[in-house]
């Protein structure tokens, strides 16, 4: 079976805080996955990643992650690793992003 190719988002960790951030359509950064800009086109995604990597003063470890449009019409993670990154550790529900919702 051919591997499904998903659209991409750009994600990284915030330099100071270390927490997970996502690149939005305006090139700003949000802490919410649903704010991420979804790239259908590979070249556009790679350009966006390059743009992110140039912002070394505020982030570390930028990369492209698979994402898809969820039920609410906004991007959601495909892989469980990315899903965990939107929440935080499962052993402390009061730690990480999940604590804020």
């Amino acid at each position: 079976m051919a591997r499904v190719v998903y659209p991409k988002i750009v994600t990284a960790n915030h330099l100071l805080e270390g927490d997970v951030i996502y690149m939005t359509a305006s090139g700003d950064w949000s802490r919410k996955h649903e704010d991420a800009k979804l790239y259908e086109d590979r070249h556009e995604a790679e350009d966006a990643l390059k743009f992110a990597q140039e912002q070394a003063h505020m982030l570390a470890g930028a990369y492209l992650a698979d994402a898809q449009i969820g039920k609410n019409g906004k991007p959601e993670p495909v892989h469980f690793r990315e899903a965990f990154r939107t929440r935080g550790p499962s052993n402390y529900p009061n730690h990480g992003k999940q604590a804020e919702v």
Partner: protein
Amino acid sequence: MYNYNQFDHDFVRNRVKEFRGQVERRLDGSLTEDEFKPLRLMNGLYLQLHAYMLRVAIPYGTLNSRQMKQLAMISEKWDKGYGHFTTRQNIQYNWPKLKDTPDILDALADVEMHAIQTSGNCVRNVTADHFAGAAADEIEDPRPTAELLRQWSMDHPEFQFLPRKFKIAMTGSPNDRAVTKAHDIGIRMVRNDKGEPGYEILIGGGLGRTPMIGKVVREFLPKADLLPYVEAILQVYNLNGRRDNKYKARIKILVHETGIDTLREWIEEVFETQKIHHQTPPAEMIEAIEAQFQPPKFDNAKVDEDKLSKIIAADPLLRSFVETNISEHFDSNHAIVTISLKPIGGTPGDATAKQMRIMAGLAEAYGYDELRVSHEQNIILPHVRRDDLPEIYKVLKDAGLATANVGLLSDMIACPGMDYCALATARSIPVAQELSIAFEDLKLQQDIGPLKIKISGCINACGHHHVGHIGILGLDKAGVESYQITLGGDGTQTASIGERAGPGFSYEEIVPAVSRIIDCYMNIREGKNDTFLDVYRRVGADPFKEALYPEETATA
């Protein structure tokens, strides 16, 4: 225990100062992440899934109460009020902020601690038997040797860029509680025919992608020859270890590909020149180190055993704690207490700041100020008077630290896995939590008897799954968490690597699968003393495979 001399103090402080400057330059943009990453890693600072993580070295797992209290303070001031004790006898903070880390390192330096060489391709924190200096079966305390190795390896200019990381473990007892056979170098204290103490040296053990049991490279090494010999091993490895492939770069692959006999010849050859040129530390220096590990001045008043037995007999919970969490001390008035960091449903190895302070307080009041961290992610009070056990138990119980499960099913090792670790392929902590809840009845666990379950969240095997009686490895199988079971592993002097039982199980299936293994064991064992490992070694994997995969075996 070892106290820093002026050299140690200056070295650690200078490193903190240097790192402070590096962090400042990273923050003002003069260092890129690519430039900064190796610098922060040299100081124990990782970037994980949700945050930075700081790994602090606890040399050979030994702490005093002041250090434990400082670890508690750090967790409250700069983290989320808890710490995670690891299989490397280290402590990890899961939530530090980049700008705070130099202050944390300064606070560590205040109590003679640091995070140097907890990452990178260098000699890592030397680990040792957590009962060192207290165990009844010990030939000699291994810690003076471990400390000597720490000093030798710290910032050793020749060994900062080895082909891969390098781990040394030591035991002073024939009963191996330090997993020496699964380390790059394992050192076991032995006596020769003349009764003199020396070392048996093993090399090439390791877990991870290619698990291997260490092989004996030297049956007896006189104590004085330790540093030139270890230096010879490192030199041979540094020159001949593979650098073309990260997965084949550990010394175990060199041992495997070259053969232990050839490698022994190479090492002995280098050792001969080393012996001439190596500047062995002067005897006074060795004596000064040894002097710092002298046993405390024990209170030798005879314990009233009759009275103590009556107190213990009157409280079933205390009795089960004493039966399970207490080990024999070389001094008959004393005992070793293992404080379980595995409460039912808890995260293996986590302790809150409050709990750290309580353990430190116990060490101060009853334990000659000594604490240890075990590779099994528990805390040890190595020397306590037996008649203080009831009082110690009471304090632990009130702090949620008296779970009587040491060596039993719920005393599991679990690595951080995908709840924290950026390298993980699946979660491991919640598997441990759910397993311990499924078997929460401690009476049942006692009936099942000695059982070591070890869980890793990826093939790197920080959770030692290969040497678990039941090992669980979390993998990513086409975008779904999948757990592979290995059976019959053993991390002690009778070490063996567990065998794969068969196809993996989903997250939902893994706890029921382990339950089937336990049921199977309970059905075929011949009485209570017939342990899981004994049964497995006697009957092999087949009955367990049938229990794990009833459908496949039925149709096969």
